[in-house]
């Protein structure tokens, strides 16, 4: 037998091998595995938002901390080399951080006041909700009645 023929024979023999049947309940187990990993859309969105918010906050905090340290590096170094200076440097940093936090709190309070002033002109949340529901129902009813009749061919 020529080598080419043997190649063909091997190819044919492998192609003719039957597929083995997967074990009983294999499909059900896979689907159960999939159901366990398939994320709920709202849940995944919520987690993602929470993660992003947390990351943003941590980044802001790290940036502010680094900025405090950088801005006061000279004073901190001078304090640190004195006897008992390390605790004084820490207290100094804490005081600076507290000052910055109070500024941030003031800014947040200002923003909140501005927001409440702007929203004072808006109706109550339940009134807005009711109006949205009413408008949606009206639009749905109108679009249903305006739908063209399907032509039978």
């Amino acid at each position, binding site marked *: *037998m020529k*080598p080419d023929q*043997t*190649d063909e*024979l*091997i*190819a*044919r*023999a*492998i*192609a*003719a*091998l*039957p*597929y*083995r*049947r*997967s*074990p009983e309940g*294999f*499909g059900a*187990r*896979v*689907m159960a*595995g*999939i*159901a366990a*990993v*398939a994320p709920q*859309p709202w849940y995944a969105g919520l987690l993602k938002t929470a993660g992003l918010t947390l990351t943003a906050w941590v980044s802001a905090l790290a940036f502010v901390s680094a900025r405090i340290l950088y801005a006061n590096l000279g004073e901190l170094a001078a304090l640190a080399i004195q006897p008992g200076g390390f605790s004084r440097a820490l207290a100094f940093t804490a005081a600076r951080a507290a000052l910055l936090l109070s500024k941030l709190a003031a800014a947040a309070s200002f923003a909140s006041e501005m927001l409440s002033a702007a929203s004072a002109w808006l109706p109550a949340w339940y009134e807005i909700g009711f109006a949205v529901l009413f408008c949606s129902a009206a639009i749905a009813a109108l679009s249903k009645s305006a739908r063209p009749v399907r032509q039978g061919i």
Partner: protein
Amino acid sequence: MPEAEKELVLRCLGGDTSAFAGILDIYQDRIYSFALRLLKDPVAAEEAAQEAFVKAFRGLSSYNSAYPFSSWLFRVAHNACMDALRAGNKTVSLDTEDFPDLPDRSAGVELKVEDSIASERIEAMLASLPPLYSEVLLLAYKENMGSSEIARVLGAPEGTVKARLFRGRELMKVKLYREAGATF
């Protein structure tokens, strides 16, 4: 890719988990057989095939529809099987291939290989080959994939695939000739 299969993939991508049952119906025996022939252990094969399907579902968004779905799925299955082989401390030399020495066959030697080979024999021969070779032979002949498609499945260059195919065939021939009682 067949239309029905394409539609199932699209439905899965659209968030319809139940459509994956259709994909499972089409491929479960093929993927399980592939894993079983590589791992040679029904329990390990079932685990690897199951893992492959779950990973495929999870990573379905990364599937590029320009290529056949089957080769993408077989790539996921190949990775699951390689992980299982590594976990079982079985040697899978992927970086440096140790090509076994093949005996020289002098031309014109009369060989007593039958015109057809019983499936049990070919199955046993495939099982005795290193997974690197049995895998390419299965993909090429059982799954009817070309060298480029196999290269995508294995994540290896096409030249490597061709070399493995050649070596795999040669090793099979050696076994066949040995069985037939031929002398080299």
